[in-house]
């Protein structure tokens, strides 16, 4: 690639890309180690939270869990779930309180090798640095299946990244595709707005909001599940692909599963498998994906019971799991015109955008290749990706341990290369 002619912005030991919770957690850890760095941010601090989330979204974790290195939740609603504004406030206050070297409105255009380090080109000059931390997030681009191109032109399509509120959608029926936390939350609020909703359900992760009187996230954290790392599971790639659990943060601490949605009038159908002649085709696998999710949830809850017994944890007695009810003959074909379905909402996940990364670190599917956030190129790190080092890696509270670990690795790298190549730095 041609070297871009860009005015130099400066030389620094470390460039952190992204001022979301992960990038800022890293900034905190680097500052504690007196490592010189900048945090480059395309927009404002917590930009994705400010610009890419729907209005009603709340965190899937209760407030008491939310923390960053050097900061814990101190509000008066520990069992509540933070809304978008509160999350933005939490993260922005963190950056401000610690005087973090964030360069806002500075978009990274390219990262390439340069001598023993890296060159980071932005729309506000180019940085030279010895190490780069990629903390630009896992959800930059909405993943939309290619069959979206075959939908009738009369159907309006919106991704979960662009969706804001039910009132923005045309009147008429809505097909929500995907039954992760996003899909079930959007299906629920769109149904409550009075629109008929069909929810296409593939493999999903079912969870109760509360189990034996405690938040399900408490069980996952306390039992150590969220600290489990890729080396401790059979198939880390499978865990990385897991959709987010069907959870919602509400004042009632209510469960939002497929049974709830069905009782509210949402029609459940199988995975969206095709579009042909103005009709959506749904997989006949709905019954099995529901059975799989029920079985997996039962196994998870049983593992919590065993852990509670072994550790003398007092909790309410378990309520039996109600199996997911599936209609006798789930709909297989949906005619958009005849059923007056005017909107498709894609809740089909996200992927990161690495179009600016001019380094040989992506695999054949465009995924960042790394071991626990350490890339194959010296001085290059990633943070905030699914199951990076722990199951909690993408959670707000999960950034702390990962950032500490990687800051430690990074500090060793800088020390080592400084001794070996004296004179290179700054």
């Amino acid at each position, binding site marked *: 690639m041609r070297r871009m002619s860009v005015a130099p912005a400066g030389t620094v030991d470390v460039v952190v890309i992204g001022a979301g919770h992960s990038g800022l957690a890293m900034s905190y850890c680097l500052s504690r180690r007196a490592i010189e760095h900048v945090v480059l941010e395309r927009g404002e601090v917590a930009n994705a939270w400010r610009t890419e989330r729907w209005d009603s979204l709340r965190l899937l974790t209760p407030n008491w869990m939310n923390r960053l290195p050097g900061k814990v939740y101190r509000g008066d609603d520990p069992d509540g779930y933070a809304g978008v504004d509160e999350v933005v406030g939490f993260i922005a206050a963190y950056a401000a309180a610690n005087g973090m070297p964030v360069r806002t409105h500075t978009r990274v255009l390219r990262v390439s090798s340069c001598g023993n380090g890296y060159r980071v080109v932005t729309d506000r000059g180019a940085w030279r640095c010895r190490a780069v931390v990629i903390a630009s997030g896992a959800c930059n681009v909405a993943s939309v299946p290619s069959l979206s191109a075959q939908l009738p032109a009369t159907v309006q399509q919106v991704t979960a990244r662009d969706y804001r509120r039910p009132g923005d959608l045309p009147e008429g029926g809505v097909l929500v595709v995907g039954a992760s936390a996003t899909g079930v939350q959007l299906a629920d609020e769109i149904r409550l707005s009075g629109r008929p909703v069909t929810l296409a359900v593939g493999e999903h992760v079912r969870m109760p909001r509360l189990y034996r009187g405690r938040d399900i996230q408490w069980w996952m954290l306390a039992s150590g599940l969220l600290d489990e790392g890729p080396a401790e599971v059979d198939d880390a790639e499978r865990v990385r692909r897991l959709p987010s659990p069907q959870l919602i943060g509400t004042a009632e601490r209510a469960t939002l599963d497929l049974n709830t949605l069905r009782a509210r009038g949402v029609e459940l159908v199988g995975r969206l498998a095709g579009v042909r002649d103005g009709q959506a*085709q749904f*997989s006949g*696998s709905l019954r*099995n994906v529901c059975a799989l999710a029920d079985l997996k949830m039962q196994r998870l809850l049983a593992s919590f019971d065993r852990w509670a017994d072994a550790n003398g944890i007092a909790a309410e007695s378990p309520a039996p799991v109600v199996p997911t009810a599936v209609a006798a003959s789930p709909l297989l074909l949906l005619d958009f015109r005849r059923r007056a379905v005017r909107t498709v909402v894609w809740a089909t996940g996200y992927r990161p955008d690495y179009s600016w990364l001019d380094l040989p670190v992506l695999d*054949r599917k465009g995924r960042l290749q790394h071991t626990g956030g350490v890339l194959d190129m010296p001085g290059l790190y990633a943070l905030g990706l699914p199951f990076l080092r722990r199951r909690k890696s993408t959670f707000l509270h999960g950034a702390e341990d990962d950032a500490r670990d990687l800051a430690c690795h990074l500090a060793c790298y800088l020390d080592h290369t400084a001794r070996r190549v004296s004179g290179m730095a700054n």
Partner: protein
Amino acid sequence: MESKQVAVDNGVNIEALLGAREALSETPQAARFKWRATSEWLNGTHSRSVIDSFFGLGEEQRHRKEFRFDADHPEVFASEDNGPTPVEYVLVGLAGCLTAGIAAVAQNRNIQLRAVRATLEAGMDIQGILGIDGDVRNGFDGIRVHYEIDADASREDIAALVAQSQKRSAVFDIITNPTDVTVTVG
């Protein structure tokens, strides 16, 4: 946890399967297979299909021997019943695929199987194929598969076996999801 000393053996070479999974994730082009059949009309609704070669692991492959399958329709269709109906072969395919999957998953999960019996039933309204009612589809209106499984495992673990087998089954996928079909005439 008590350790199991008796080796589980369902006759599935799981090491070979796991080895293949690892090797093929390194060389995904070798994972591309082509399955084939040839079919000859004999008389009436009677035809004979032959299965012989396939392509996979980057080269032509052959079955250990040639397999022949007669398909026909029963006498209530005014046919000679020289073989199962084609839709019954679909059930054979589904049963074969799901049961193979159950054995493989059981081996992988260290579950000894003693008996696995499947009963399959598919509903079909033949007003579709006879063109009587355009609103009735030609194919099945549903398939019911029932498994009776005797194995060294809990009810939940057996249910999980059957669910996982469906999740990984090619024929289950072929039946439950649309597939593009191209038919040409020479």
